[in-house]
């Protein structure tokens, strides 16, 4: 049986493109342009899903992207919204959240238990005894949720686009399109967006049978399409309103981020269901849903029906229904005055009975509870909201259309910061104070009359133009006298309940009344206790009725209740649309390829990739073997490490020395050209932040290095302080521009000598000095450093020359047994040398006194960052101390790890910050924080290993090489 009717003017389906798909094992015919719901409804299938909580059968409610009881899965995607998702040929879908199919859902028994599941029931039980809660929780978790996630779903990244405009208009209905034309006429650049596949808003379903409506739409669309200042985007929704008027437009293919200079919200209104028993049965739908079915999809909503209404929309719905052959039994008008005479006469002329001051008391379900059998109608007093259930009349029918009122689609206005007020002339919330540059037009602004909506759009456009500096005549919108489009209380109580307010969450009238009884009589508390509006439709059809019920319970006017906050997103938005490409940039040094080609085991070091060690020349070793081999090479012959990641900053200008004196703890004024000094940086609280070297290049120029991980932040703080202190200093960050390598070991001088004519003898280039020299034909800075070994040269060359110089040195060192070494090896080597690493051996609170760095503090200087705090700290007793330690000779026990604790008498005294076995020394050596009384050379302390064993450690002097000469301790 098909409910598809004859072709409607402007219908959205393409009858030339029929298609076939499967629903719950049944083959269904549809057309291109159909949504899943329209195709199913056309095929006479009315049970489209089961509700979240009670597993009640549900059909079409809104047909406006909040039918969240009609969610489908095709086995790939889940939670597909049937009311808006297009059908595709061959798709195979079923409803989510059922066991055994939508018709026979085994969970439907929960509906019978509903009297025992009052509002917030889960707070009141399942917790005594505590041990049973996991059992109940498991049941609740399994019952909750909607669709099942497909773990094989591919990662999809949708592109992001960006757009700018003078005016962004949200909603391409009558007021939005009118605004667009007006704004474009002022020369403004306009974007209009609408979530529907076609523009026109209610013009495509309300009054849609009338020629004037079609003419208006055709004319407006003609103007929009012919105006180059207007970009019309359909099938995309404005997801939210963010700071500085950023509005993401969410389309099927991705998000367009629009930065608008002004925004006109013309998003219309959501039709609200009147509330009566069994208003949720398949076949009971909103009037606008019925109209959309008829005019957009050419589907007859039902065969024999009634319309329950509290405004004139219901009468037009009745006429539309009658026009497509529905046997409309009656219009049931909840108002005492009914519709204007001419309108109600039109309805009566079609042979439709009109009952004023009446309501639907309840819907009588079919025996399978899957549809409508009849309605029970009774007198209704619209002031007291009292239904006279003693005088009911039963009308047989198979469908009900409901038109009792509207709620503004004001989510974006709220997000923009609009203050709303309740307007009794339309019985809805309307904008009261709008933020600068934000305007509202049409139904969302409380304007319902067709002519007035056009003018209201033009008015908003004129105001936006004026806001943007255009001279434009003010447009006034005359007030049209009409009955309020919304009923102040379209709610019919019933002792047996099942009169639903929130269809997402299965919340009934009594749930609100009981929530209020339990003290949740503030709208936000009520929302949280009942969960109204917290389902996927975000209260689009339920928040307004919830507010009306609470107002009545508390005997307060609606405006005193207020509204809940409307947060993004306007519609649920896919993670793949929002998330971009995972952006994890890496930096490569000039020698990167060489490392990879020579077996470098590359590791992340901040943004950089660095070799930890090498599987050198195709050999396969354990990390431990490789590290010890490379370390031994440095100790006995030579090794080289790529140090390009060091921060490298040139500081020059008349005040360069003064700047370093203030910035670092040391003294630089008497530093000779070519000499280096340790550059220790503290923060204002005296905590150690960074250490590097500062080499004086000439009188007014220093070359400063920083730790690799701090390069950017140190440079940034230097820049800030240059500005703050007003010094004549220029900073150049050479971190990425220069490659650096350290050639270390007893043979290093011999190797380097073969590549340079410069005198690099001990006398000419002692430790801590730098010369400018040509290395392998490249102009280089050559510095004697002793971080990893007593004899070592740090060579800095331009990035482009890095690989060449590196290769030349490796070649020159070949006959000396040179090895490249990585960061793991560097850690061991510097440990042997007794050098701590800031932020490895120190933490976010370590001061120089705790890390035996007093010698670096020149407290007699007038000022350096952190100095004043150190003066305070110096007066306090030290509570921890970083020491060098060794384990016993030939230690074979449970090896401690970094971060194992130092324990004494069951108390934490400190922790191991670095520990390693040194093959060169044949000892386990390390650094640890200990209590100050444990810190003197020769003292012992205990480390607790992962397994709980206690290991004795002895404090020794650094560097550790004295361990070779004697027994050390």
């Amino acid at each position, binding site marked *: 049986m098909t409910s598809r009717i004859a072709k409607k003017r402007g219908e959205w389906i393409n009858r030339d493109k029929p298609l076939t798909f499967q629903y719950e094992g049944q083959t269904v015919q549809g057309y291109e342009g159909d949504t899943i719901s329209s195709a199913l409804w056309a095929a006479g299938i009315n049970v489209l899903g089961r509700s979240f909580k009670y597993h009640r059968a549900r059909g079409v409610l809104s047909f406006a992207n909040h039918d969240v009881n009609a969610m489908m899965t095709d086995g790939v995607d889940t939670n597909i919204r049937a009311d808006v998702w297009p059908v595709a040929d061959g798709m195979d879908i079923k409803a989510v959240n059922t066991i055994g199919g939508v018709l026979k859902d085994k969970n439907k028994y929960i509906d019978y238990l509903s009297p025992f599941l009052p509002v917030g029931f889960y707070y009141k039980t399942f917790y005594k005894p505590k041990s049973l809660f996991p059992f109940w929780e498991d049941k609740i978790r399994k019952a909750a949720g909607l669709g099942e996630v497909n773990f094989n779903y591919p990662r999809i990244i949708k592109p992001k686009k960006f757009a700018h405009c003078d005016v962004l208009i949200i909603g391409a209905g009558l007021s939005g399109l009118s605004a667009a034309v007006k704004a474009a006429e002022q020369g403004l650049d306009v974007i209009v967006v609408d979530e529907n596949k076609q523009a026109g808003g209610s013009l495509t379903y309300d009054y849609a049978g009338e020629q004037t409506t079609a003419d208006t739409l055709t004319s407006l669309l003609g103007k929009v399409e012919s105006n180059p200042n207007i970009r019309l985007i359909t099938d995309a929704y404005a997801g939210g309103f*963010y*700071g*500085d008027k*950023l509005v993401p437009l969410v389309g099927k293919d991705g998000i367009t*981020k629009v*930065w608008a200079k002004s925004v006109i919200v013309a998003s219309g209104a959501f039709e609200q269901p009147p509330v009566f028993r069994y208003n949720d049965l398949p076949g009971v739908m909103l009037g606008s849903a019925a109209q959309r079915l008829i005019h957009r999809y050419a589907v007859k909503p039902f065969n024999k029906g009634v319309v329950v209404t509290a405004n004139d929309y219901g009468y037009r719905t009745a006429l539309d229904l009658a026009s497509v052959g529905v046997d409309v039994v009656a219009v049931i008008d909840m108002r005492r005055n009914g519709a204007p005479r001419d309108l109600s006469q039109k309805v009566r002329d079609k042979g439709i009975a009109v009952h004023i001051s009446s309501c639907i008391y309840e819907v009588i379900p079919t025996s399978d509870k899957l549809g409508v059998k009849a309605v029970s109608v009774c007198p209704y007093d619209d002031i007291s909201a009292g239904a006279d259930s003693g005088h009911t009349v039963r009308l047989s029918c198979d469908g009900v259309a409901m038109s009792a009122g509207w709620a503004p689609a004001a989510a974006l206005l709220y997000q923009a910061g609009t203050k709303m007020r309740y307007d009794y002339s339309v019985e809805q919330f309307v904008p009261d104070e709008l933020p600068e540059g934000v305007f509202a037009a049409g139904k969302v602004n409380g304007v319902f009359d067709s002519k007035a909506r056009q003018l209201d759009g033009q008015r908003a456009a004129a105001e936006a133009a004026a806001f943007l500096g255009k001279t434009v005549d003010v447009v006034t919108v005359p007030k049209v006298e009409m009955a309020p489009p919304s009923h102040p209380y379209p709610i019919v109580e019933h002792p047996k309940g099942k009169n639903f307010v929130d269809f997402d969450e299965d919340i009934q009238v009594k749930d609100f009344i009981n929530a209020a009884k339990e003290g949740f009589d503030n709208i936000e508390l009520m929302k949280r206790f009942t969960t109204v509006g917290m389902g996927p439709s975000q209260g689009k059809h339920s928040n307004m009725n919830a507010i009306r019920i609470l107002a009545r319970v508390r005997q307060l006017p609606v405006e005193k209740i207020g509204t809940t906050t409307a947060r993004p997103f306007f519609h649920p938005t896919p993670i793949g649309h929002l998330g971009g490409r995972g952006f994890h940039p890496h930096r490569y040094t000039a020698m990167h390829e060489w490392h990879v080609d020579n077996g470098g085991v590359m590791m992340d070091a901040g943004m950089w990739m660095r070799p930890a060690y090498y599987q050198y020349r195709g050999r396969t070793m354990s990390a431990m073997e490789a590290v010890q081999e490379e370390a031994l090479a440095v100790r006995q012959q030579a090794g080289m490490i790529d140090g390009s990641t060091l921060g490298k900053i040139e500081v020059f200008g008349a005040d360069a020395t003064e700047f370093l004196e203030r910035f670092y703890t040391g003294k630089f004024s008497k530093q000779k050209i070519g000499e280096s000094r340790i550059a220790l940086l503290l923060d*204002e*609280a005296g905590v150690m932040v960074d250490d590097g070297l500062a080499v004086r290049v000439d009188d007014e120029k220093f070359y400063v290095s920083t730790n690799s991980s701090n390069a950017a932040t140190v*440079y*940034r703080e230097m*820049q*800030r302080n240059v*500005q*703050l202190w*007003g010094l004549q200093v220029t900073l150049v*960050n050479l971190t990425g521009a220069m490659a650096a390598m350290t050639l270390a070991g007893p043979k290093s001088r011999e190797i380097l000598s073969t590549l340079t004519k410069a005198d690099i003898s001990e006398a000419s280039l002692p430790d801590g000095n730098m010369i400018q020299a040509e290395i392998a034909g490249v102009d280089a800075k050559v510095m004697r450093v002793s971080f990893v070994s007593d004899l070592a040269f740090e060579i800095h060359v331009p990035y482009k020359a890095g690989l060449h110089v590196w290769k030349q040195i490796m070649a020159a060192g070949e006959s000396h047994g040179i090895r490249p070494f990585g960061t793991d090896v560097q850690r061991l080597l510097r440990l042997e040398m007794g050098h701590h690493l800031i932020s490895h051996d120190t933490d976010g609170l370590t001061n120089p006194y705790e890390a035996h760095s007093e010698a670096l503090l020149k407290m007699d200087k007038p*000022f350096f960052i952190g*100095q*004043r*705090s150190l*003066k*305070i700290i110096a007066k306090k007793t030290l509570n921890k101390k970083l020491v060098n330690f060794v384990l016993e000779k030939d230690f074979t026990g449970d090896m401690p790890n970094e971060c194992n604790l130092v324990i004494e008498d069951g108390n934490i005294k400190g922790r191991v910050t670095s520990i390693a076995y040194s093959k060169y020394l044949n000892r386990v050596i390390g650094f640890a924080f200990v209590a100050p009384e444990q810190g003197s050379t020769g003292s012992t302390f205990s480390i607790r290993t992962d397994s709980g064993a206690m290991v004795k450690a002895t404090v020794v002097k650094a560097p550790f090489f004295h361990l070779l000469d004697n027994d050390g301790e």
Partner: protein
Amino acid sequence: MKLLECPINGIRPISEFTYGGEYRNMPNPDTCSDSEWAAYVHYRNGAPGLKKEWWYHTPSGTWFIAERNTMTDKVNRTYLLGQEEAK
């Protein structure tokens, strides 16, 4: 997303900037008491209002001052430190 005007590079998205905290006057370290210094180091004016703040335009390496209301996120003006009169 917010936009912010760098005095050198013009209006840019906020993701290009690094927040540098409130601009604060340092007490004279030679004359202030220990507790005045400790307060300067650790305490902040956390109440909302119009504040002078450090901001850094990361791609160009520009520090500047923004006068921003921390309640509304509205920026009144931005300028290089010491050049507020020129603006």
